[in-house]
């Protein structure tokens, strides 16, 4: 099939539409889950850091090590290694939902570190001011740390989302569906490079869209400096 013929094929468009939907679902559901679990870990890392509000060197060390190990596992290995866990959670190890599990697990340590980095950028003086005003630990976390760090948190989530799109292509290769899957099935296995090309263009557009939206949000939230 040539490129021209391809573009006129309704079947391909249907495939593309479905694959894009799967990619976005995998990306954003796992992003949301990873943020929900990763933010508290990031907060915990921050608070337990030496000199911080709940400084605890041992906790910080152990937690930090776990996060580092999680981040250093290659995604493809992680994906295979946790298949039993995936099966336990969603009942199957193939399909889009099954891909969301390893994607989330892979993103959690990444999110946790990014959150820690953002929270560490909050000026210590501001935290002390809140303490001096009689804020509780929970109030400081919610109303000072997480709020002041919003620009950094959004920028971090943008990076995570884009990484997840890349990972989801890999997950797709083992039956997760999505754009990566489509590109491999048609472009590689059936040798239709035109399909691969169109898929890549769609991926680039999605990534650009996410980056752009993230940047706009960050700019709107950022009143520092």
């Amino acid at each position, binding site marked *: 099939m040539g490129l021209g013929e391809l573009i006129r094929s309704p079947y391909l468009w249907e495939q593309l539409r479905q694959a894009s939907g799967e990619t976005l679902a995998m990306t954003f559901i796992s992003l949301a889950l990873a943020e929900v679990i990763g933010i508290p870990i990031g907060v915990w890392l921050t608070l337990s850091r030496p000199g911080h509000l709940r400084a605890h060197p041992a906790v910080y060390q152990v937690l930090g090590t776990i996060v580092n190990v999680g981040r250093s596992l290659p995604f493809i290995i992680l994906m295979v290694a946790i298949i039993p866990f995936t099966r336990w959670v969603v009942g199957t190890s193939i399909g889009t939902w099954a891909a969301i599990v390893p994607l989330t697990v892979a993103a959690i340590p990444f999110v946790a570190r990014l959150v820690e980095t953002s929270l560490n950028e909050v*000026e210590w*003086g*501001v935290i*002390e*001011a*809140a*303490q*001096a*005003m*009689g*804020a*509780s630990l929970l*109030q400081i976390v919610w*109303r*000072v740390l997480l*709020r*002041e760090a*919003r620009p950094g948190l959004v920028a971090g989530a943008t990076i995570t989302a884009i990484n997840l799109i890349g990972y989801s292509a890999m997950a797709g290769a083992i039956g997760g569906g999505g754009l990566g899957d489509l590109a491999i099935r048609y472009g590689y296995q059936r040798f239709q490079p035109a399909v691969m090309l169109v898929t890549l263009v769609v991926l680039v557009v999605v990534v650009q869209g996410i980056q752009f939206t993230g940047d706009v949000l960050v700019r709107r*939230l950022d*009143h*520092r*400096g």
Partner: protein
Amino acid sequence: MTSTQRSFLLSQTRDWTPLEVVEIATEVVPAAASSGRPIIEVEHLRKSFRQADQQVVALDDISFQVEPGEIFGVMGLSGAGKSTLIRCINLLERPDGGVIRVAGEEITRLRGPALMAARRRIGMIFQQFNLMASRTVAANVAFPLEIAGWPRSRIRQRVATLLELVGLSDRANAYPNQLSGGQKQRVGIARALAPEPVVLLSDEATSALDPETTLSVLGLLRRINREMGLTILMITHEMQVIREVCHRVGVIDHGRLVEVGPVSQVFSRPQSPMARRLLRAHLSNDVPADLLARPRSDGRQLVRLTFLGEVAEQPIVAQLVRELPVLVNVLYGRIDRLGGQPWGRLVVELSGPPAAVASACARLRREGVEVEELGVPEPATIQQAGANGLGKDRDEQDEANEQSQLAEPVPGVAARADVRGGAA
């Protein structure tokens, strides 16, 4: 230049009193001293820090009290322990020992929610303002009320009142990064006042501001103190700030409180070596060395006169000249306000028959003027001259110079012809 060329005879300006030259609002020290219990009581406060392998004693057995309605200043060199002291008052720093009571409540015993509640009654402002960048001016002021659980409508009202008070009503929806330093500190003040605290702690609140902005922020603090009767404990390394607004002052030297007293007293007659050192550049050191060294013929006496409080408002010198056969030649003059009291200093040369000069001095003393005869260089001046020559004391000298830059003479009143004039 002869001394007649650069001075004038006081007898020609009959009703001149030192303090008429500049307008000075004579302020009354607050009723504080008379009323009941001190609002801040600090007893035997100790705090040390671990630095690397050694123990640094930041506060060494500090005891003092702050009366309700007063502005109490704490001064000391860098590293003396000022910040540590003020941070102990609201337990941002937990003391190793001692007792602190605020409005009768023993702060040092509190933990958890009780401590949080107590902190809401202690406002604090900071050198770097410490506003939240993600919140507007109004939301920053609302913050302490939100965390204290005030209902929204009351918060809105209170925030509006406070922004009005600090003159920032029109900037309510601006973000801190759109404000000048002075405006930021005004927001900081409004925020600190929001939960109606019983005391305000100020940690170098004006040290990041230019002199003019400093004056306006100090004016605001003084107004708050006067109109709301709010007690303020402020630490600063700027003598001018203490002189401008404080009623009483404490001097910290290496973690020890070495002197406490009314600003007028400490500034005019500092007792401790540290107070003298901090103030040396600020107030004394007023007699040019060449003047002292110049041989003086008989019947001429160089004296330093210090007027404090009411005496400063009487035309004492003019009367003296009218009633005794002496001439008064003014060589140096400085007029200021110390802790809300008028204060003046003149270095004059008295000339006339020796008996008349002596009785002039006696008479000045009787009127309550402090008279120092400056026939020979005073010990402090000798010390200083020595320090200038010795590389060893270089640091100390630099610090003194730093201080003198902060101490600006009153313009137009006196040409300050001292050796360090260039640095000031």
